[in-house]
């Protein structure tokens, strides 16, 4: 096979996905049906949308920890807008745009202060959660009965696809195109892969940081809003564990912790791998806590395994060049 390194990487990850799927499909009959696959994709929508945004910030060599709180705010706002009589699409647009602007401001502040994004976003993680509680008046927001048809319109299926899974796939395609084919997208890779080199080559940090954080807030908001509308209600304390799942999807999909490496196709493969394992564990009859345990363990296994194999590869490469020279 004559594949470039990034392509070989994604083929390997896709093979892992197929392997995991086959093993679990052996046990779980539901996994072999189209509707089972559709359910798999539907369950991946929230994690997937959040992972797109978090993945972009990770490619930029940063990380947005505030996505869970942002998704909660978006869920509360979306339910409130629709309850107030705003139609579905304008409500979604308003929520996502607001979040994207807040995210852009967050990226701009991180750039202006030149502060570590992990430290800055742990503060906004707390603050946004508080805002979600305030907006919801500390209580769960539910759609009134006459608006429940909107919830149904989101959760319907045509074939194996639902509006939500179509949105997920479209979002992956759009952001994937943006990140790999446009100059602004390549800037995000540049500041993640080699920040010093990128800066001396004249890439400003401002635009990529603003775009990455705006996208991560916007995507988290889209996920939170869609999921809340589908379930007909939003709790301000919800979406607490989405960060773990999103980061897990990114890392399983080959996004490098140091930034600059990996892509949206990889995140999609990582997302599906994670969902197959988690849904597989769930449909084997394990209680809900086993699902968090599974994603936590999977994440630890994948990242340590990858780091160790990378170190071994590097050693072997070094040995080979050393013996070739000697």
């Amino acid at each position, binding site marked *: 096979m004559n594949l470039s390194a990034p392509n070989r990487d994604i083929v390997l990850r896709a093979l892992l996905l197929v392997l995991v799927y086959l093993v679990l499909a052996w046990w779980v009959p539901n996994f072999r049906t189209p509707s089972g696959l559709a359910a798999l994709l539907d369950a991946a929508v929230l994690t997937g949308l959040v992972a797109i945004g978090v993945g972009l910030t990770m490619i930029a060599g940063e*990380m947005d*920890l505030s996505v869970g709180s942002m998704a909660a705010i978006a869920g509360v706002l979306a339910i409130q807008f629709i309850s107030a009589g705003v139609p579905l699409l304008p409500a979604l647009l308003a929520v996502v745009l607001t979040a994207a602007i807040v995210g852009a401001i967050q990226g701009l*502040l991180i750039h202006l*202060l*030149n*502060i*570590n994004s*992990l*430290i*800055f976003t*742990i*503060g*906004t*993680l*707390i*603050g*946004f*959660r*508080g*805002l*979600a*509680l*305030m*907006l*919801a*008046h*500390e209580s769960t927001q539910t759609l009134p009965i006459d608006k429940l048809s909107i919830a149904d319109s989101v959760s319907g299926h045509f074939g194996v696809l639902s509006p939500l899974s179509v949105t997920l796939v479209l979002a992956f395609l759009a952001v994937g195109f943006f990140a790999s084919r446009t100059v602004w997208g390549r800037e995000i890779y540049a500041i993640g892969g080699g920040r010093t080199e990128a800066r001396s080559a004249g890439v400003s940090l401002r635009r990529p940081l603003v775009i990455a954080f705006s996208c991560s807030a916007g995507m988290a908001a889209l996920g939170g809003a869609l999921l809340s509308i589908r379930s007909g209600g939003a709790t*301000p304390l919800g979406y607490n*564990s989405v*960060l*773990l799942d999103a*980061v*897990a999807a990114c*890392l399983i999909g080959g996004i490098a*912790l*140091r930034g600059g490496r990996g892509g949206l196709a990889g995140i999609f493969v990582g997302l599906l791998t994670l969902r197959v394992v988690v849904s597989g564990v769930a449909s084997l009859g394990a*209680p*809900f*806590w*086993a699902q*968090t*345990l*599974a*994603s*936590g*363990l999977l*994440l*630890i296994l994948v*990242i*340590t395994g990858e*780091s*160790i194999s990378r170190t071994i590869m590097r050693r072997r490469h070094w040995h080979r060049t050393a013996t070739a020279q000697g």
Partner: protein
Amino acid sequence: MESARPPGDRVRVIRYAAALVTLAATLIVAGFTTPAFVTYDNFLAIVRAASITGIVAVGMSFVTISGNFFALSAGQMAAFLGILFAVATVAGLGVPAAILLTIATAILAGILQGMVINVIGNPIITTIAFGAVFGGLAAFMSGNTLIRVHDDAALAALRFGTARPLGIPTQSWAFFALALLSWFAIRTTRVGRLITLSGASPAAAAASGLPVGLSSVIAMVIFSCGPAIVAIFSVAQFSLAKADQFSGLDIDAIASVLVGGVALRGGQGSPVQAALGALLIAVLQNFMLLRGLTAGERMTIVGLVVVIAVAGFHLAQGRRR
């Protein structure tokens, strides 16, 4: 040490002063505007809240000083260890043995997390993942129900959870003792210097032959003892443990470290700053609670205080990462 003051000293004075002035200002405002604030009962409430957060924050400051930012697994670890302690006590292991088991498990958890941090190089992701594992284990061990301690002998042995030697809760004595001990450890012991130097510059420390990886492991072990102690005290105080007991602990402890002004670049700061931060957060929370602020308003304000503190200290430091 006295003759060669590190260059960050002026900044450290600013950091201490900022935390102290804010604390004093909050105390004065609260004291003058809220009569319920200046009562003995309220004093006890503040001190106890500060102690729980503070014990974790003091341990967390070692992680920060070792250059690993902060850990996001404190709450879930405390829940898991609390359930482990309660289950062991209910099973008739005896309180001293259960305490030993809990601390030993915490040390093991710290070693594991420290080792994974060394392998993958990212403390945040490591502790998020381990947090999920601990949360899962907590739900698994408790069967997601309350674990109550009924046994009279065990309850008698657990009386330290509600005791008040000299009118001050045991939790607070433990907090003061741990803060002093930690300050002493980081300033005067070899391990303390190893952690400080590895945090200040991992490359320089490694080049001088210091075991940098070991410093992360030790820092994570010290950190993990905080949730263990908090969990044991909590079970002793309420005679019960449940899986979702410590949901706000992470945020409060991280906020304490950040507001107290421990430098997030690593290699600077002291556990006393984290303790001061815990006191400040506890006073602020208590004041807001007495003023009738809702949970959302309180959380938003804490988040705002953290962002302002982090940005302010960062600017005072000179904007370097």
